[in-house]
């Protein structure tokens, strides 16, 4: 375990001031951060943790207000999955929350922590920093590019890294055009999830947060009348696994055909991947097996399967799974 200090912040101002100091990070549920620290996988690990769970007023809430579903950053995934309003009107978010890990981790893990988790790649996460990967060290290499990459990107590298987005929540936020409110500004979800350049100090992040910037709230616009959303996740096991392919879909139907479609893939690229071809294919169509299949096929175009040593354990399966997940998610919005 890396050595660290731990302080309980009582106000968001206190937390902001504390996290602005070098080597400091906020801790929410700790389900990602503590495993990262325990394995001592990174030379950039924070040495001071600032506890957000003690902040008053609490950042754990779900409410509908001003045309948005507002979810406090400290809200647990269990609370989101169980919330009846979320399930009824922001279905994809509830489904994504329910699909994360296991009940214990959902009770512990928060939505803020979920969209700020570190990359998932065996090389990045390997104990004791034995692989100097470029998400940790600008002079490092992407070992997965030619090594073990079964779980990795099928749309090529992002800033040299082929790790796939691990968050189940992120694609939903992009698909639903969410705002991510921080102590500094309000981000559009589409701009928030990035893979920073290796030269950037934020290179370990899956988002563009500045040092000391804390997520306080997620705002999801209430979908227009006739809209439905769905989230489909696929992994080898039916529980506990991170997504290997996921699809978040929001469709609006009027007069029997789709007037707007938002289709975003997760776990197939370093950031949520908007499947523009699939969206175009679906708009103007009725939602049925044919249109859903066409959307799936369109979503799976432009892929680049990674090379593997000896040709084994390739990630080519993801292309097929993208088709199926998009098809299923589209049909689920019918």
């Amino acid at each position, binding site marked *: *375990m*890396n*050595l660290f200090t731990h302080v309980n912040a009582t106000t968001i101002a206190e937390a902001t001031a504390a996290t602005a100091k070098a080597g400091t990070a906020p801790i929410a549920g700790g389900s990602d951060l503590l495993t990262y620290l325990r*394995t*001592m996988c990174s030379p950039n690990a924070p040495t001071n943790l600032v506890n957000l769970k003690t902040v008053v007023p609490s950042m754990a809430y779900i409410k509908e207000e001003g045309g948005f579903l507002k979810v406090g950053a400290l809200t647990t995934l269990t609370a989101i999955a169980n919330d009846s309003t979320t399930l009824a009107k922001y279905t994809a978010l509830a489904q994504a929350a329910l699909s994360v890990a*296991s009940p214990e981790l959902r009770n512990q893990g928060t939505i803020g922590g979920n969209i700020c988790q570190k990359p998932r790649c*065996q*090389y990045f*996460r*390997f*104990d*004791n*920093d*034995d*692989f100097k990967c470029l998400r940790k060290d600008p002079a490092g290499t992407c*070992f997965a590019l030619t*090594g*073990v990459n*079964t779980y990795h990107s099928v749309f090529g590298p992002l800033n040299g890294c082929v790790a796939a987005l691990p968050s189940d929540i992120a694609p939903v936020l992009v698909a639903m055009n969410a705002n991510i409110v921080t102590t500094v500004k309000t981000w559009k979800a589409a701009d928030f999830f990035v893979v920073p350049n290796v030269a950037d100090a934020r290179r370990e992040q899956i988002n563009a947060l500045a040092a000391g910037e804390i997520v306080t709230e997620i705002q999801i616009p209430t979908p227009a009348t006739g809209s439905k959303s769905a989230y489909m996740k*696929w992994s*080898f*096991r*039916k*529980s*506990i*696994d991170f997504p290997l392919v996921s699809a978040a879909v929001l469709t609006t139907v009027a007069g029997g055909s789709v007037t707007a479609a938002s289709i975003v893939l997760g776990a197939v690229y370093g950031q949520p991947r908007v499947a523009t071809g699939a969206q175009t294919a679906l708009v103007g169509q009725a939602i049925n097996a044919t249109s859903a299949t066409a959307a799936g096929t369109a979503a799976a175009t432009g892929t680049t399967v990674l090379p593997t*040593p*000896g040709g*084994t*354990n*390739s*990630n*080519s*399966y993801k*292309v*097929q*799974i993208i088709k*199926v997940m998009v098809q299923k998610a589209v049909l689920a919005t019918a």
Partner: protein
Amino acid sequence: MDTLNVVGNPAIHDQHSNLILLGKMDYACDRLPGRKLYSAFKSSSIAHGAVKSIDPAAALALPGVKAVITYKDCPVWSPNIFQWGQEVAGVVAIDAGTAARAALLIKVTYDVSKPVIDPDESMKPGASSVGVIQGKNTLIANYLTRGGGGEAGMAKADVTLETVQPWSTTYQHNTLETHSAVAEWAGDQVKVWCSSQSAFNGKWEVAAALNLPINHVHFFTHGTGCAHGDKNSSPFAVVAAVMSKAVGGQAVQVALTRRDNMLFNTRQFSVRSAIKLGAKKDGTFTGIDAEFWGDVGRNPMAPVDNAHFGLRTTYTCPDADFKVTRVVTNTPQRGFWRCVNDPPGAFNYDIAIDKLADKLGMDPFALRMKNLRAPDAPDQDPPNRVWGGNGVGLCFDKVYTSSGYQSKWHKPGTRVLADGRLHGIAITGHLDSHGYIVGSTRGALVTITADGKCLVNVGGGRGSEGGLTSCCIITAEALGMPPEDVVCGDWGNTDVALDGGMQAGSTFTASAGGAFYNAALDARAKLFAAAVNHSPFFSLKVTPDQLEAKNGFVYLKSDPSQRLSYKQVMAGTPPIAGYGTGWNATLRSRSVGGVAQGSVCNANGSAAACAELAVDTETGQVEILGYWNAVDTGRTIFKQGAIKEMLSGCELMIHQALFAGDVYDIPSGACISTQFNESMVPTAMDMKGERFNVYDLESDDAAGPYGAHGMGEPCVTNYSAIICAIFNATGKWVDPEKGACTPNKVLKALGKA
């Protein structure tokens, strides 16, 4: 055997389940809280080469660090590196975190040699040397010719099948408690608490490594936190003792991290094979030519030898060749692991049998039954012994009837379920190389105490559910005591127990159990000798041979109303100690197949499994619809334990077939699937327990105590049923690519990835 009162009684619980459930079982790391130091390892960053220098200065300078040891101090370490992540040094510190951080500060330089990670590369002529065998990378483990050999058999065949089966899965099962030890010295004596499943093995390992008299090593093993053979050897006990010595004898704890546990412990083999089968048109085998290779990692002595065992023994075939070769690689050591070489061996030969059935246009189950040996038939190979109890036919029959196979089997790729998925079903099974009876080296001690109860001190670890309870059951039966009066005293304590041997090879119940049977008879004889000094027996001038015991009473055979309870006999009698040793497998209870009682025989377990599943051809996902696991126990001693073993066997077979597989980074040779979630243990949602059906069947082994032989390993061994059922569903064979048949590989077989 309807006279048995305790053996097989379904109401008997495991004696330690409560301790585990209530968190009261003591594990090695629970020992000496508050007065022990902690440790961490520095491991190699190369897969092959030699340590040139080690500079511990920065580690030693870290506050809280007490000592650094290297391979120079530790007899179980070496400067020669044969795998990535091999231990080269260790740190002792005031807490585990300090030790771990200090270990990162140790600077090591190496002379680097070329590693060989891929077993196919290793086998190639002119391959670089792995370094563990002089001048080569392969070792023939065994070679056996029967009749005129495989080629002669092929010449008599109407149909031949030749198949090369690629490497099966290799994986470490990642125990809940990692391997651990706590050691402390008092003068020239060392006490070690360890998670070992083999207490006396550990004691000898420490004594031999440190050149100590055996009675200077006090070795204890209580909770093991699960062991599948990978806690048979206890090198970490030696390391803990060395570390403790380095800090003046103060207690030191070695507790492997998940990463270290994955890198250092033994694991399941990968097996590759080239199998040729010849048969008449009706399916009668005429010839087998089977060659197996086992990737043993850096352990050239790994016991891969019996990969062919089930194919060799289960079916009749007059002409055959069997060959097994060990292939070394610069990867973690393969070795003892649950059922060792039978599951991957069977995985390979069961695929070959199913391929032959397909070629013959036969139901593969019918092909197996056509060639199944009669239970009383002797082994076809020297020394041609009969089996004390061969129940493989019972197992096949049971899974066949209970699964409804007859009405469910269809030609490959021909049944579509209502939801569009493909339906598949298959049965595999074999006589297993495990479950044998290890002779007289097993010792037992039972003590009848003043309250008329019996203490059973087992000299073995608690490696599994049931081994210790089984010893108590056998003792209770032989002593004629109610089961609740026979309790496990201290176990795994090498100071107060005799050597019960390892809990592995499925040898424990029948071997240590045999010793307890004899120890109980010895105690019983002493009890009868004491009883005749008490009235009414004294006044009736009864001699010990006129007595019998049942349900906690000693009674007169001729008049059972004349009786004394054990407690009455023991009043005024000093505690009675009974000693016994086990026996080698001989036909003790009866003759078999015309072979006389008393002859040396084989005693093995056997099992069969049926998998029924659905394959989603769009996603490659496999859902187990039903799993039937039938195991020949010989005699079920501990019913609840046997059922739990078989249920866990279902879980493990599904794990092996569909999820488990180590992943290696080829350039570095690092096993990079070291974290717990990468072990891919199936979750409750991946295997629905209510779909498991388990059956303990009793062949009444003429060699074992009360007819028992081992079953803990045969019950995990038929994961081939799953790949064969996937074939039955899809008509395609999945290449496991040294791992499990995960959906990506199923899709690849279907041409969709």
